[in-house]
């Protein structure tokens, strides 16, 4: 007899039927389907029968067969919710350790999450006070030079603004702004430096900043008109009655025509005052070309208010046409206009020439990701500890099930419990958030400018939402676990359920937590060491106790004379700029071959500069003092320079006396300097040349004796006051300037360090809880072992080895990852850096291991020392 293979209808289709079908209809329907299936099998191929079965299942999906959602009985839901809250409260009160660990962990992690939410919400509420915020767009520019990377600019050309005015349809109003109005305002005898923004008369049509006094439409129409903000009005006149008053800049009189409210803090533009754009005489050439040149794209901003029905795409098309027309006359270069919505300005990739402060979206996303890791880590704690205590809870669940709770209700109960815990945590998190907020805002001056982090009902509702989501995530796995419990089995013998069935899951969660903790802390340690390395790096010259004072356009002779009279000032030199702190001043250099030119970094110094900073000369001599206005003839170069142009066959001695051409000046090399760092450590050492001037008009470098620094600084300040009454002194120690140049790294380090601290706190809390629960469970086992003669050391080893194994695995994952990350990603950016010290990697591990050893040690000791007689008596 041929054995017939049994063909069954597709199981998933049956499951689908079971899922949607009303229970009372299900049996009948499925029976019918089965009958037809069998019938079809006899006449048709198996796969056709199966297809018919599937089609029939789908065809049965009718209004009368679909089951009604079972939870829509509001009365029962309400009653049960009350019950959930009550039982949850009892559970929280009963197991204080469990609740404590979770509430503390969740509170810490959520406070960070709240901070991120507040940050993001701040970024999205930028300029929200403006009436037509949704319809305001600005023109952005992409500058394409052949052979150079494209540059994206927030600024554009004045001409683009004028062209848009004429040629682009669908624009209700538009305004052209120009930055860099700077000057000393003279009001009678008073001189006060202020900065402002040029704007044309349509400014207030586009931006609905409220005017307190003056006529919005005409305030900026006439040349030499000013609109002041309240603060500026107070600063200049000390009162609000400013309309019609005169302010003198250089020799021109400006008339105040408007007074406006201060710009809100959360605005992407900020200014002290507005100057009418018509004040600029466009016929005069500007230093970088004509004002109205298509290529003059660096200082002007164009904002447009679209008409209600304007499609941004149509504007882009019109702009593309403009580009094509205008770029036709350019060689090797293209200037492309685009638009950006006002509300997207504060977040995103910062462009060049931003008009105000912009937060990089990468930074926000990174912080959000770190906060997410911390929150998830706290959720893991909850999950782990909940499952670990299942022995206590499972009987309760069993009884619930016997009484008639369905699976979804058990899930509901456990999720409600975790949400309640997380709401409790929210309460504490809120206070931590208030503390964090103060810390965060004072963290870096830039941060204070960007964020206000003020509480609002909307923000609070986000916080509550966060707590609910966090609670749901934390409670999800335990809820699934408990809802699967078999009631009969649990009630018969609670110990029979396999609590440790989920051991691998829990171990995995602990390993993930510890891996993150280790990565964070190791990154902090390595990063800190590297950062210190940058600050102490041997730059090739000394910067110690050198005070750089910016001259701000003042003559230096009187100032230098008075300075040198101070006994604490050891030496004084002058330079055009301060190198090694990131700013670069360059020029074109040629040697013998007129076709071979190179961009070279330059500085202009006097004869005292080299000895003051201890530069090392490989050959030749330093500059000698020369009278003012004597022609420039000499130059000092570094090793890279003679290597670059192969001057004197790379021999410093032979390079002396050679003539090089710097910016069309023929200068003789009189000395070759040992290579030093002109840029930051991110850049390779490039060719550098020092030119000579008896007064380079940039900075005074004063070497100051160690001792009473603040007294010296005060007397220098007093001298400054004598020569410049208007501008405050700008004096900084060289070492501080270098630290500033790397300040972004210190900011990043502080943030990562903070997260490392949180991660360790939270994972330690979790480990602590796990250790306690495990110990409780093994108390009897240990007692029996002890009775049978196991030594204390043996027992300690037995108890702690599984935890230490987890730590070891986390170490094996985290440390190589961190090392690779630093070696290949972070430090690859720097041309010069210290190698990662082998020991550094293990400092973090040491800290984490020490904390865990102490925790595990204390608990195991407690158990090991317990009196076995007392423990075993209770059986």
């Amino acid at each position: 007899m041929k054995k017939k293979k049994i063909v069954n209808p597709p199981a998933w289709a049956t499951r689908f039927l079971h899922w949607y079908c009303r229970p009372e209809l299900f049996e009948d329907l499925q029976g019918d389907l089965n009958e037809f299936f069998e019938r079809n099998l006899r006449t048709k191929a198996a796969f056709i029968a199966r297809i018919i079965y599937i089609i029939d299942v789908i065809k049965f999906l009718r209004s009368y067969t679909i089951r009604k959602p079972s939870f829509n009985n509001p009365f029962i839901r309400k009653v049960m919710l009350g019950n959930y809250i009550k039982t949850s409260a009892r559970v929280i009160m009963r197991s204080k350790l469990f609740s404590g660990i979770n509430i503390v962990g969740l509170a810490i992690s959520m406070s960070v999450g709240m901070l991120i939410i507040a940050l993001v919400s701040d970024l999205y509420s930028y300029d929200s006070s403006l009436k037509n915020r949704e319809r305001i767009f600005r023109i952005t520019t992409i500058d394409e030079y052949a052979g150079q990377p494209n540059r994206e600019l927030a600024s554009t050309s004045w001409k683009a603004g004028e062209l848009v005015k004429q040629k682009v349809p669908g624009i209700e109003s538009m305004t052209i702004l120009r930055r860099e109005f700077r000057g000393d305002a003279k009001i009678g005898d008073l001189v006060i430096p202020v900065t402002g923004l040029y704007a044309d008369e349509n400014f207030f049509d586009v931006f609905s900043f409220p005017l307190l006094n003056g006529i919005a439409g005409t305030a900026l129409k006439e040349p030499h008109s000013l609109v002041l903000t309240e603060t500026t009005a107070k600063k200049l006149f000390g009162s609000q009655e400013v309309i019609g008053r005169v302010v003198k800049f250089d020799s021109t009189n400006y008339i105040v025509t408007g007074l406006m409210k201060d710009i809100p803090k959360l605005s992407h533009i900020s200014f002290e005052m507005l100057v009418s754009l018509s004040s600029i005489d466009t016929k005069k050439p500007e230093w970088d070309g004509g004002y109205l040149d298509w290529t003059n794209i660096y200082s002007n901003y164009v904002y447009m208010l679209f008409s209600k029905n304007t499609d941004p795409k149509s504007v882009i098309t019109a702009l593309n046409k403009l580009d094509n027309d205008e770029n036709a006359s350019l060689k090797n270069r293209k200037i492309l206009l685009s638009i950006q919505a006002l509300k997207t300005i504060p977040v995103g990739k910062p462009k060049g020439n931003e008009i105000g402060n912009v937060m990089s979206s990468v930074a926000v996303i990174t912080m959000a990701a770190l906060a997410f890791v911390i929150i998830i880590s706290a959720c893991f704690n909850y999950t782990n500890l909940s499952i670990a205590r299942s022995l206590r809870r499972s009987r309760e669940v069993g009884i619930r099930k016997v009484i008639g709770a369905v699976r979804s209700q058990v899930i509901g109960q456990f999720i409600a419990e975790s949400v309640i815990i997380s709401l409790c945590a929210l309460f504490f998190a809120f206070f931590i958030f208030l503390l964090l907020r103060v810390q965060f805002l004072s963290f870096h001056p830039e941060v204070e400018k960007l964020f206000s982090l003020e509480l609002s009902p909307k923000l609070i509702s986000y916080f509550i939402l966060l707590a609910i989501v966090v609670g749901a995530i934390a409670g999800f796995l335990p809820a699934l676990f408990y809802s699967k419990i078999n009631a009969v089995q649990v009630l018969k013998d609670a110990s029979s359920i396999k609590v440790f069935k989920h051991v691998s899951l829990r171990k995995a969660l602990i390993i993930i937590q510890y891996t993150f903790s280790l990565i964070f802390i190791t990154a902090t340690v390595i990063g800190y060491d590297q950062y210190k390395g940058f600050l102490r790096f041997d730059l090739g010259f000394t910067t110690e106790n050198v005070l750089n004072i910016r001259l701000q356009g003042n003559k230096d002779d009187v100032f230098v004379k008075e300075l040198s009279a101070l006994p604490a000032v050891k030496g004084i030199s002058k330079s055009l700029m301060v190198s090694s702190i990131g700013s670069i001043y360059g020029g074109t250099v040629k040697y013998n071959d007129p076709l071979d030119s190179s961009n070279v970094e330059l500085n202009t110094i006097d004869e005292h500069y080299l000895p003051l900073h201890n530069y090392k000369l490989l050959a030749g001599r330093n500059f000698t003092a020369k009278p003012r206005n004597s022609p420039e003839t000499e130059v000092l170069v570094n090793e890279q320079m003679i290597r670059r142009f192969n001057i004197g066959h790379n021999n410093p001695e032979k390079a002396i006396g050679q003539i090089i051409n710097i910016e069309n000046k023929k200068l003789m090399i009189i000395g070759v300097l040992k290579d030093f760092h002109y840029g930051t450590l991110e850049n390779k050492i490039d060719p550098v040349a020092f030119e000579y001037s008896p007064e380079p008009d940039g900075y005074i470098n004063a070497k100051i004796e160690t001792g009473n620094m603040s007294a010296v600084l005060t007397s220098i300040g007093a001298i400054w006051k004598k020569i410049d009454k208007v501008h405050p002194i700008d004096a900084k120690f060289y070492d501080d300037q270098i630290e500033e140049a790397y300040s972004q790294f210190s900011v990043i380090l502080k943030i990562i360090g903070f997260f490392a601290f949180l991660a360790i706190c939270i994972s330690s809390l979790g480990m602590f809880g796990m250790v306690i629960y495990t110990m409780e469970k093994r108390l009897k086992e240990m007692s029996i072992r002890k009775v049978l003669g196991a030594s204390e050391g043996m027992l300690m080893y037995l108890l702690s080895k599984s935890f230490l194994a987890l730590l070891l695995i986390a170490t094996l994952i985290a440390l190589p990852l961190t090392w690779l990350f630093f070696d290949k990603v972070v430090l690859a950016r720097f041309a010069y850096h210290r190698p990662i010290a082998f020991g550094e990697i293990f400092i973090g591990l040491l800290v984490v291991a020490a904390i865990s050893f102490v925790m595990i040690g204390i608990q195991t000791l407690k158990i090991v020392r317990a009196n076995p007689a007392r423990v075993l008596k209770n059986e």
Partner: protein
Amino acid sequence: MKGTHLGEFEELVLLSIASLVNEAYSVAICDELSKHARRSVKLGVVHAVLNRLEEKGLVKSELGEATATRGGKRKRFYFLTGAGKASLVRTKEIRDQLWQKIPKLILKLR
């Protein structure tokens, strides 16, 4: 108004339930209809109609005993209720009355 009007297909289903006596369950009804009406009758449609008839109170149903066929699932047998019978009779009466009014000549098929 629900319950008074009987659609054509509903009438056919009712009739087949009556004719199948104690063996009227969905598949059998389906087969019966296919046989007599000479049109393909879909199971889903029959189910929908049975459901509606039951809602109208014209039929009642109960589950039978489990058998080895149908994957061990029980059959749901349908019976006419009093109202069902009444509405069938009433429909027939209306038709008969109309039939009688038709002169014989007209319906002679040639």
